[in-house]
């Protein structure tokens, strides 16, 4: 199955017939089976699917964190597939931002230092106006001097968001960014991601298994058993839940 083809010129990230096989012989697992998909610029896309369906694997392959077994991945006009370590490092540094489910921050650095870390690694200076905007949007101005251990989970994730945004990457990948948060803190983070797409034209690809979270996105791509099986534009929590239920039934038979 193939997702609806978007406007090619504006794709921020693109996967073409991507296969991913882990291990070999008895222990061989095929996590992705021929995924072709595009993520448009300035849009908030969610990747949904049951646990083990290959969401994280797809995201890792898109972001150049993992190599694909077959197929190609592009970020902007850069072909990720086949890049060496130096190329991948440059890609991560200049074009991609990450928000993980947990362990987003270096425990020894303050919130501010964590936020500025990608820029200082790249040896760049932050744009002061943009930095102020980001800090104000995440609402962390009074917490900048704190260490991660002194922040709540929601605050930590907001620091991670700010870190991803401050470098203005081509695309931000987020893997279950609200997976460890309660619903209120989760809503704050999701609102924040939603706004950064609306107001600043940021491209975000978010992996989640939570229909409520997916409803914040402009578009949802459904993954089951390593393949894209469906997609929704302008989703609501209810339409997402419905689609999930429909997908679950055959999947269970398959198992």
């Amino acid at each position, binding site marked *: 199955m193939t997702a609806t083809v978007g406007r090619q010129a504006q794709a921020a990230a693109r996967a073409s017939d991507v296969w991913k096989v882990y291990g070999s012989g008895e222990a061989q697992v095929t996590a992705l089976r021929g995924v072709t998909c595009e993520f448009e610029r300035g849009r908030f896309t969610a990747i949904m699917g049951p646990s083990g369906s290959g969401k994280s694997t797809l995201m890792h392959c898109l972001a150049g*964190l993992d190599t694909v077994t077959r197929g190609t991945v592009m970020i902007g006009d850069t072909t990720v597939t086949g890049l060496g370590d130096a190329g991948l*490092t440059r890609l*991560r540094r200049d074009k991609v*931002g*990450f928000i*993980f489910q947990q362990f987003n921050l*270096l425990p020894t650095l303050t919130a501010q230092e964590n936020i500025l870390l990608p820029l200082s690694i*790249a040896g760049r200076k932050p744009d002061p106006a943009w930095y102020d905007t980001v800090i104000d949007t995440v609402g962390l101005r009074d917490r900048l001097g704190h260490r991660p251990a002194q922040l709540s989970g929601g605050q930590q994730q907001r620091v991670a968001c700010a870190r991803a945004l401050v470098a203005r990457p081509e695309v931000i990948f987020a893997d279950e960014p609200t997976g460890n948060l309660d619903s209120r803190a989760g809503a704050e983070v999701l609102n924040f991601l939603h706004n950064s797409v609306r107001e600043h034209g940021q491209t975000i690809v978010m992996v989640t298994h939570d229909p409520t979270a997916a409803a914040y996105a402009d578009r949802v791509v459904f993954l089951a058993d390593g393949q894209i099986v469906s997609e929704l534009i302008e989703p609501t929590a209810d339409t997402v839940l419905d689609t999930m239920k429909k997908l679950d039934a055959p999947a269970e038979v398959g198992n």
Partner: protein
Amino acid sequence: MLRATLKSLLARKLRLLLSGLAVVLGVMFVSGAFVLTDTLGRSFDAVFADATSDLDVNVAAKPKVALSEAEGEQVAAPVPASVVERVRSVPGVAEVKGVVNADGARLIGSNGKVVTSFGPPQLGENWLGESDLLKLREGRGPQADDEIVVNAALAEAAKVKVGDRVGVLTLAPKKEFTLVGVFGYSGDRGSIGGVNEVAFTTPVAQQLMLGKPDVFSNVAVRAADGTTPEALRDQVARAVGADYEVKTGEQVAADASASLKEGLSFFNKILLGFAAVALLVGTFLILNTFSIIVAQRTRELALMRAIGASGRQIIGSVVLEAVAVGLIASVLGLAAGIGVGALLAYLFGKLAGGLALAGLGVPPAAVIGAFAVGLVITVVAALLPAIRAARIPPIAAMQDVATPDRPLTKVTVGGAVVTAIGAALLFLGLGGHAGDNTLATILGGVLFAFIGVALLTPLISRPVVALLGAIFAWSVPGKLGRLNSGRNPRRTAITAAALMVGIALVTGVTVILDSAKGSISALAEDTIKAELVISGASSGPRPASFDPAVLDKAAAIPGVQLVDGEYGDMAMVDGRRTWVAASSDVAALERIFGATATAGDISRLGPDQLLVSSDTAKSRKLSVGSTVRVQLSRGEARSYTVSGIYESSQLTNPMTLPPQAAADFAIPQPIQGFVQLSPGTRVADVQPQIERLLADSPEVSVADRAAFIKQQTSQLDTPLRMIQILLALAIVIAVLGIINTLALSVLERTRELGLLRAIGLRRAQTMRMITVEAVVISIFGALLGVVVGTGLGAAVVRALKDEGITDLVLPWGQMGTFLVLAAIVGVVAAVLPAIRAARINVLGAIAHD
């Protein structure tokens, strides 16, 4: 990036400090050695400059046999009185003194024992009166032949006072004198540089110290006003001719100081050797610490990689941490080294009888050495973990799994290759194929062997640790501890390898020295056919000796069948230095030492004949009838004809001269006496009679054969003990390593420990678990050390087969002690980490991320 590095460094300061401690100790030895040498060197300069302050030009005869520092005191040829007169007539000379001044005047203290000296000479001199430098403190100068004066420090050490009758040993046996005065030096000093001095009247000094009347050791000259010492030196040199060395006072001081400094440089090398051991062990510790830290920071480093850090930046950040640790360790080590250098200099000064120390000096070499060594070692050790850190994939930031255990194939192959290189180097070095580079080749071989075995250790650790751990597997905590120690073979291996180095070195040295002792004893037991032996412990660098008359008197005791006195000297034979001996009774060669003739007749020796060993005959291409020219320490060179050749053994001398020649030896008295009894005579009957004969030779005593052999071989005990003490330091450093590894492991397993505590593991059980892990690691290290050390020791012993070390003696008792010690070390090392583990807050640990 820099800030992130420094912050992470600060967060780990304690563990880095622990591992840095080994570097601190290594740097301490390096800089301490330099500080010590510099301080003592300048002190020597000052002492000799002072001692020669009223000397403008010195005339001495060239020594007949030039010796190196290690071969003993050089015996200068005497200067005849006629030369003194010749110097006196040189224009520009203001004052000329014939000086008698030779080592070997040993005063017998009020307790009947010879006053000993470690290092500074015990000079016997002629009394030349007071000077600007030297003043009598009490009494007067010696006027009669049985009067002496001594320096104040010696009088104090011997507890003698003016008016006492005191005994003095010189070239001649003990003689009694009346102490008529005590002198000191300007600045209220009792000695110069700890030198003991006994001053006689000139004729007595000539007879007792130089063995001849009307000769002097050297001639001291003062220049008249308006003549420079250099100008006078050239004038005097022309007057006395080429047989004499003429130097200015400054040159004399510089030369004397330089020869002492040469001795110091040996000491310096020993200290640097231990620095090398400490640093080798330190390298293992640092490597381990950084590896663990990198492993613990896997997710952090992966996160950095995910947000754009390049591999090079990661390497940079780890190396930067290493540089910071190295810098701090160097600074601390340098400070400690200055302290240690000062302390050793102080102790040395005390031991040397009150050497006045020049101010403490920190030469640039100490500072440069400290920083170079500290930085290089730390950075080199951290390089491997840094490269590993750069290889962490960014995806590791998202995975909860620890990086899987990498296969050990590469390390094992590398270890096998390095071990093989080490073995090859050892084979080359020990087999004598390395020519001039033998020592370097052997040391390189040992180093490679250690590194190679360390690399092989992870592979060995699996079965051995499992086996060792089985001993403790009877309890749950024991079982967990065992599993933990087998969990990370690399970490366990490097920690154990650090302990291995120290224990292997101690074991190796012990194997070599014990084998040497065993071989010499066995040979002596088999060959020496003398029931009683006269020998002594020396009171300084000169061997103890006794009156030759004792030999004749002993031979007259009923039941004594044969008595032989052994003399020895370093001589020039056909222009090459050789140790020569003389036996008072040549027959002893066959009858006491079991020598067999391979050519000629070895049972008798004419005054112009000599005997050589088969080895010497071979190397010098001598046969019966060849003539050789022998220059002894004293007298003129003489030709001897080889009249017999005896089979070489460990106990035979290269050359044996007729007894008459002993008069020209540096020590013209027997050093050892061998007494053979007739069958049926009881040792206990004869021993006391010989003891009585030796009443005037307090430095020597008579012992039965077994006691003599033991006494001879026990000379090896002192160096052995010293090496053991210093290498114990390497073991202490390794213990720090075990503490460090455990502490880091406990930290790493905080969560797991919390879980164990949550499901009911008691505090005491937690502590036992950690202790078992420590004990398993340290016994493993000790076991490796014992095996590797025995291997190295056995290799050296085999290589020394031709030198007479034929028996391989393994110190089983000592090896057992090491293993027990290792168990104790493990328990001790576990204390702090175990307490830490037991204190872990259960809730906090589970929540810990």
